[in-house]
């Protein structure tokens, strides 16, 4: 965990907002949001690693933008921030400047999913 607790991976405020939107009687919105995130985000992470390696700016732009906004929605601030950086490089076509950011995204993503799974298990209790 590289010295970070799971609580700092996700911004609780963001999750609280989603919780507050929940209508009574409806299946948990937060659960649906997290499920949807986990379902849709892993292909994006794939695309990010691949397009970064192949220096395909167009694909990286789309994928990092999408992952950025969906990650922000679930409160994955750091991940969203890393995506934003990648998005910017891709937009400016500075594909050789990416450095180790693609790897950081992949690592951070794993941590986010782990944290979200804990959130899910809390909901299911």
């Amino acid at each position, binding site marked *: 965990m590289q010295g970070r607790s799971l609580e700092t991976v996700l911004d609780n405020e*963001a999750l609280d*907002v*989603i919780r*507050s*939107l929940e*209508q009574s009687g409806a299946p948990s*919105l937060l659960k*649906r*949001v997290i499920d*949807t*995130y986990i379902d*849709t985000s892993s292909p994006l992470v794939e695309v990010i690693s691949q397009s970064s390696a192949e220096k395909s700016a167009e694909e990286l732009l*789309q994928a990092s*933008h*999408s992952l950025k*906004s*969906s990650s*922000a*929605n*679930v409160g994955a601030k750091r991940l*969203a921030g890393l995506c934003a950086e990648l998005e910017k490089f891709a937009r400016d076509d500075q594909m050789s400047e990416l450095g180790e950011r693609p790897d950081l995204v992949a690592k951070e993503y794993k941590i986010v999913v782990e944290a979200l799974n804990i959130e899910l298990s809390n909901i299911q209790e």
Partner: protein
Amino acid sequence: MTNGAKILFADDDVGMRLLIRESLERSGFHVLEAENGEQLLDLFEVETPDLIMLDVMMPDIDGFTLCKKIRENHNGKNVPILLVTGCDDLGSIDEAYKVGATDFISKPVNWGLLGYRVKYLVRASGLQRELILNQEKLEYAQTIAKVGSWELERDVFNCSKETLRVFEIDEPEKLSKLQHLINKIHGDDREQVLQSINDCLDSGDTVDVQFRLDAHEDDMKYVACHGEPKKGIADNTIGIAGVFQDITEQKKQEEKIVFLAFHDVLTGLANSRLFKERLLGAMTLAERHKLNVAVLSVNVDRFKRINDTLGNKVGDKLLKIVADRIDDAVRGSDFVARTSVSDDSSVSRLSGDDFTIMLSQVPNSDIAGKVATRIIEKLAKQCIIDGHEIYITGSTGISIFPDDGLDVDQLIRNSSSALLHAKQQGGNRFSYFEQKMNSSSIEKLHIENDLRKALGRNEFVLFYQPQVDGHTGEIIGAEALIRWVTEERGMVAPFHFIPVLEETGMIIDVGEWVIRTTCEQQQKWVQQGKKLIDLSVNLSAIQFSQDDFVCRVKNIIEETKANPEKIVLEITESLLLDNDSGIIEKLEQFRDMGFCISIDDFGTGYSSLSYLRKLPINELKIDRSFVKDISTDLDDGTIAKTIIALARSLKLEVIAEGVEVESQLEFLLSQGCNRIQGFYFGKPVPAEDLLLPDA
């Protein structure tokens, strides 16, 4: 207003869609979602969303392009569009407004506030829609009324589209520039308008000013501007709110009315009112500069004959030609050209064929004589009107201010006396006025001249003097008495003009008018449901000299449908003594038609009893001269008594006229004369003032 409003949104991210839908539905919206731009455009075609929300970054069509496309669609002009942009991206915010977005939100979206944001936008757009609708209504109303509104506040100007239409400005971008409007104002009026606006701003005066637009000279456009000061918190004037109104039509009507009030419709020349006004002005000026003003009266010799033989239409055309020739002669004369008084005011038509010319600032009377000579020369030329060759001549009379008169009427009158003198000398010439022309013979000529026009100008009126039953005071009849009312002379007494009518034969036309008018009056009263009374009219010997007199009267009766049994024809006793024109036979025919015949002024002639017996008469009228001293003068009393007795023995009615006091009435009643006419019961009054009981 926002409850149930339909929101259409597009986002390619499924998690985003989930959250957007959730947060909007929570706020009571009906939500339609699209996964991409294509889908959104399809949905937009079939649904009518109250608001559209677009993600800027989408794989197929980006939000900016979508927004633009929607705005280009006719149905998408006014729908609010909310763009969802990446955070802190100023460029995309700029872009969003450029493509017509109503508002933007940036990511990450604050889901708790999204519903409120959308609610606000939907409500604002509703208000805006209502505002647009009201504005359209207002604009429509302004177009109908030709009224445009405007507003000026702290140097910011704004006006409605109708204002631009009033000012004939095509480019709508000029709605906010006062200077564009000012530039269109006629140069002579511009200063006044600016002054008025400044006065309003400076001292809070109301703006109320009319001006012309700088359009083509012959097609002038008039605009009225009205404005009220707008007050600030400290009651200081901070601006003006007002209207512009196209008043061209009203203005044209006004000008027409003013023109008609001061001009003669037939010739377009000044009328007598304008002429007199200008003459007065010229006299005032001349007095100051010790100069003369000449007044020339011109008319066509024997114009009436032309009018009578060829008809009014030809007469009117001739008058137009005459007007042109006079105008031409006056303008063309050296003097007039030199002194530049050749405006239309110097020639006028007072009435009929009477033209009047004013020459202001003449150094001496010779110049007036030269102008008169030119007029006479110009007039004495052949005219061809509707195929008729007409030879005319004209005459002119001249009076000079101040020698021949010090006021307007006197000058015109004296120039007209000189004119009559010129005509007396044979016409086709001019005369200067001389004091001796004011003799009675000229006066008579004046009267004669005016009388010739009196019928055409409706200057005659009939008054009615009641005749009553002396016992009961009940009205039983009225005598129709002619009056002549002219603008110049006022009411003229019959003894001033009847002799002239008789001498000139005009009594024939005027007499016929009297009979016709009386018959019409009888029928008017019948229609009003009034009591049918005897109406007497006076006939003159000259009328009897017409062979077809009876026939003419018969026609009048037929045309007016009057009842002759209630019309009394009054003739003088003296008329009966001379039977040269077959008077007795004509009277018999009148009586056969049902008329009553009354002998006026009875007692002044020398009718014998045996002669009277043979006459077709119904009534004797005791002359006022015997009534006057009836109760005091023994002789008068005796004559009256005799006439009353005579009437009784001949089985005739008897009536007394000139009864003014009670003693006269008592005497007449005691003698058995019941029908009374005179001031005691009433003086002659206009028809509408004669009080008749209902039938």
